[in-house]
């Protein structure tokens, strides 16, 4: 199956959206800010502050914007390459909200503020949009995105060099999504055949079909 599906597509789109951020300090005027899924494990990779983490914290059925009905198109909602005159007919996909926590981690207050500024620009409280390619890679859909929460989570933590301060900004970001027809079809399969065992003796009082 080409491309990325529900959730993975949003994960990658969000990570791509956060790439390219830079901060400055006395040693490096263009220090790039790395982006990880989850807090980097110090046994796997070096922790280079500052960095940003993405955590998927919930996938919520979006019943308030769920529609019911059928669609007709020639690429199965961007999941199958169009062939000849084939037309696909399917139920409207299942609506979900995907909720992420995007967290910046920094040692220097100036870098913390710079990251806060950049993140609040990327995730405005209104009119945010996340570019997500379709599974075929032929089109980009812009998903509405909402900043549902912002929390300052500064603290002091044990590090290899002893207690060190860490400045964090935790943003709760909601991305609207839909489970595409193929996943939806698999999630809710229709009964195609009902098999009846004619050899079974029914209990007393019941008549064989």
């Amino acid at each position, binding site marked *: 199956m080409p491309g990325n599906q529900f959730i993975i597509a949003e994960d990658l789109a969000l990570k791509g959206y956060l790439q390219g951020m830079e901060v400055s300090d006395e040693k490096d005027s263009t220090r790039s800010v790395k982006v990880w899924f*989850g*807090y980097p*494990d*110090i046994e796997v990779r070096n922790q280079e502050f500052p960095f940003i983490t993405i*955590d998927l*914290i*919930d996938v*919520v059925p979006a019943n*308030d914007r769920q529609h019911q009905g059928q669609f007709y198109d020639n690429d199965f909602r961007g999941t199958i390459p169009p062939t000849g005159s084939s037309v696909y007919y399917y139920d409207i996909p299942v609506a979900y*909200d995907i*909720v992420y*926590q995007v*967290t910046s981690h920094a040692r220097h207050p100036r870098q913390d503020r710079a990251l806060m500024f950049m993140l609040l620009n990327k995730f405005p409280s209104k009119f945010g949009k996340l570019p997500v390619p379709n599974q075929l890679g032929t089109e980009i859909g812009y998903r509405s995105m909402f900043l*549902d*929460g912002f*929390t300052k*989570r500064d*603290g002091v*933590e044990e590090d290899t060099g002893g207690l060190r301060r*860490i400045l964090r900004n*935790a943003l*709760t970001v909601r991305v609207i999504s839909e489970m595409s027809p193929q996943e939806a079809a698999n999630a809710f399969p229709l009964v195609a055949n009902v098999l009846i065992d004619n050899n079974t003796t029914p209990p007393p009082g019941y008549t064989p079909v």
Partner: protein
Amino acid sequence: MTTSAKSDADAVASDAAYYLMEPLTKVLKEMAISAGWPTDIVESLYIDFDGERISVAYPQNKSAEIMDLEYGRGQQLPNSVIRSFIYRSDKVVKDVMLSRTADALFDLEEVF
């Protein structure tokens, strides 16, 4: 019985909100248990209504631990319960509000 529309609306909303506290607290605790939050933290969670707004509440001495669980800390990843609860509690709110609002309106108008 004659009252202003505003005071009636306030009374209906307050009455319904009061009846939300118990079912919402139950849902919140169930979600915290499912997420694996420590038992003492689960027991400390409740829904509060101060007459104007409904909120997730907990004792001040549990605040730091709850925020660490909710948002993560260092290697400890976020294990969201409170935010998930807020996203998912709408059905309970709608059911209780609809039920209680109807009852309260009947009471106010002395229908029965």
